């Protein structure tokens, strides 16, 4: 089964929604695919109990003529087409132009106890909660770095959780310097104030890190360290996230050049968001963490470019540059510090798929060497968690990926549609 699009957009978050809407407005036949069941991406993830933000509703409502392909996961690239897997089977999508709006994932770093049930990412617990995870009445500790901690806390509180505290690893000086910069970004400042108002009464500590999670079958107590010492706090859930890293695996699979500096790779694009591969554009977090505003404006630029309207794309460049400067500000003030990098002990599991400890990796020169000897990174997450963490910890960069892009049914790799009727249609096309 092959479907053809003028413009195919991968990722239905803010960047992808903007790209798809923009390209469709130019009359292009547009497909917008996402592995998740609903459009919105992470930041605009559908909430089963709360109405979506207005901007998200508008972006989704603006998708006139766009073919929204939910629960479509890109598996491989086959001769200029994308092989996707769906719950029903698989399909081959061809395109005139491709927009990579693959977004970001949370930076999750190892510490003793991080594999206990009840310990998750901060954005991770927010996402789970929006999809109905029961948190009402639960005591939650939130830790890590960046403004995402506040957003996660606000969602959890709105769903009835008792947020015991928010622990930001960045130093008080760094956070206060960031707050002063916010004066130049009135909309962001207003957003931050509104979040703080929704979190009235919740302690928000700086220079404070979760050292250790304890519990038998699930987390019960966390050890928190700040400038004054270490304290133990009882909780039912612990949510720890250290900011975001770009999802570049599809770009890499397609052969797009990546920028590896400083720690985590992002897709290399020129001013007009062209990657190194002809007809492939990238927008939003995949090009480096820039935040929601940058994602939306870049999505629009990529939508114009992918449908052949470079002049309209150029008009948006000043706005884009300004949005990107805010992203750079975040990276500067919330980067994980050395105390965070030193949390994992030699006994701490680093590869959660294959249960490989950090100590087991001593003496290996690179990711492939370590993988062949210890199985680190050989599991279902394909090194997305451990490889990214090891890069952040300064061990070695993540190894090159191998197809499939995500684990997929063998039938999908064989190019088969799963249902017999689809098999029949495949043989006649």
């Amino acid at each position, binding site marked *: 089964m092959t479907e053809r699009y003028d413009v195919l957009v991968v990722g239905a978050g803010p960047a992808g929604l903007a790209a798809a809407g923009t390209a469709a407005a130019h009359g292009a036949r547009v497909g917008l695919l996402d592995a998740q069941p609903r459009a919105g991406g992470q930041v605009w993830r559908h909430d089963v109990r709360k109405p979506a933000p207005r901007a998200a509703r508008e972006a989704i409502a603006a998708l006139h003529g766009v073919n929204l392909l939910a629960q479509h996961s890109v598996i491989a690239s086959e001769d200029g087409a994308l092989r996707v897997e769906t719950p029903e089977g698989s399909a081959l999508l061809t395109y005139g132009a491709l927009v990579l709006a693959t977004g970001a994932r949370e930076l999750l770093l190892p510490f003793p106890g991080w594999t206990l049930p009840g310990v998750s990412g901060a954005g991770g617990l927010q996402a789970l909660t929006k999809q109905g995870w029961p948190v009402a009445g639960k005591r939650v500790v939130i830790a890590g770095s960046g403004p995402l901690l506040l957003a996660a806390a606000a969602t959890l509180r709105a769903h009835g959780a008792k947020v015991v505290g928010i622990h930001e690893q960045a130093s008080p000086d760094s956070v206060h310097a960031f707050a002063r910069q916010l004066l130049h970004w009135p909309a962001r400042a207003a957003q931050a104030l509104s979040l703080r108002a929704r979190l009235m009464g919740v302690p928000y500590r700086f220079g404070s890190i979760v050292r250790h999670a304890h519990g038998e079958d699930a987390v019960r107590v966390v050890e928190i360290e700040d400038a004054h010492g270490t304290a133990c706090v009882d909780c039912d859930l612990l949510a720890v996230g250290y900011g975001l890293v770009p999802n570049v695996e599809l770009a890499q699979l397609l052969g797009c050049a990546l920028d590896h500096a400083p720690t985590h790779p992002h897709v290399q694009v020129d001013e007009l968001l062209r990657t190194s591969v002809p007809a492939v554009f990238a927008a939003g977090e995949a090009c480096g963490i820039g935040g929601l505003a940058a994602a939306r404006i870049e999505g629009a630029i990529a939508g114009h470019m992918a449908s052949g309207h470079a002049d309209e794309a150029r008009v948006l460049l000043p706005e884009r540059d300004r949005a990107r400067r805010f992203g750079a500000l975040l990276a500067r003030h919330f980067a994980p510090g050395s105390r965070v990098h030193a949390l994992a002990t030699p006994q701490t599991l680093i590869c959660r798929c294959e249960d490989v400890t950090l100590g087991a990796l001593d003496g290996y020169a690179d990711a492939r060497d370590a993988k*062949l000897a210890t199985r680190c990174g050989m599991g279902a997450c394909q090194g997305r968690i451990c490889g990214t963490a090891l890069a952040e910890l300064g061990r070695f960069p993540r190894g090159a990926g191998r197809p*499939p892009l995500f684990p997929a049914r*063998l039938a999908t790799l064989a190019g088969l549609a799963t249902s017999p009727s689809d098999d029949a249609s495949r043989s006649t096309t």
Partner: protein
Amino acid sequence: MSVPGYDLIVIGAGIVGAACADAASGDGLRVAIVEPGPIGGGATAAAMGHLVAMDDDPAELALARYSLRQWEAFADLPEAEFSRCGTLWVAREERELAAAAARAARLAAAGVEAQLLDDQQLYELEPELAPGMSGGMLVPREAVVYPPRVARHLVARAQSRGAVLYAGRRVQALRRGGAQLDDGSSLSGPVLVATGCALPALLPQLPMRARKGHLVITDRYPGLLRHQLLELGYADSAHGDADSSVAFNVQPRPTGQILLGSSREFSATDAAVSPAMLRRMLERCFAFVPALRELQALRAWTGFRPTTPDGRPYLGAVPGATDQWVAAGHEGLGVTTALGSARLLLDLIQQRQPALDPAPYAPSRLAA
């Protein structure tokens, strides 16, 4: 500047080079190992790790049998991940089953136990096989290992006996009485070239082709399959000369994962996974085990088998050279025959009487 001297400079630390370094150091030789990449990082890392006797060439069978006996010493080594799952050869047609009787007899004559199975016995052993199979042949003592870790173990054991590993170094050229490395330094002593597909870079007079293969590994499904499964027609693919071929060859790893093969291509030179070849290979596997279709694949990869014109490895002295030896070209049987190859080669180097007739593997048979 003094040039370090050795009794044997092993070039290449794949499973074959590692086995040679281990055997040489065990013989008391002063050994150097030169490897530019990870140990066991070439064909060794791409291999299935199936220890199997193929009976269609008497010389290959003799070498495999000799080597399989030595593999028994690794049965309890944790790093080897040795799993005696046995090999189950599956017959789709009566014709294949009839041919299997002759194969079982050849294996038995070489001292390899093999049992013929009717269809009922076959399905008792592997209920997930597709209906309609005729029967099969079980070789119960055969096993699977994890080759890259075995290669590391062998190198580490050689090092513990004093062998010196030149990691990250490449041999630029063979010199009279030694080898020159890519950092400009030299090593002196007899050399043993075990560089697999890269053999022509150092020994262009020995013909070698790289034969590409694909493999896919799944998530864990413990108990789904119990034996290394191959179709009885496998040898037609493995030892035929078709430019591309596939054969059903599926392995339950000790982890519960399923490893799926196999494909063979001579003309493909780039390492990328080919969707078309993958499709052919997987459809072949589905024809034998339909339940495979719905399993979650974690990774697909390719590797290159070092292949000589007659399919047998080069084991012995480099023709026309002094103090140059070669152990390369094992095609798909490098893991199975590595230990035996090393033993045979060390006997030749040390001027002992080898346990096997070395003539069928002599490099001079094919040297240009």
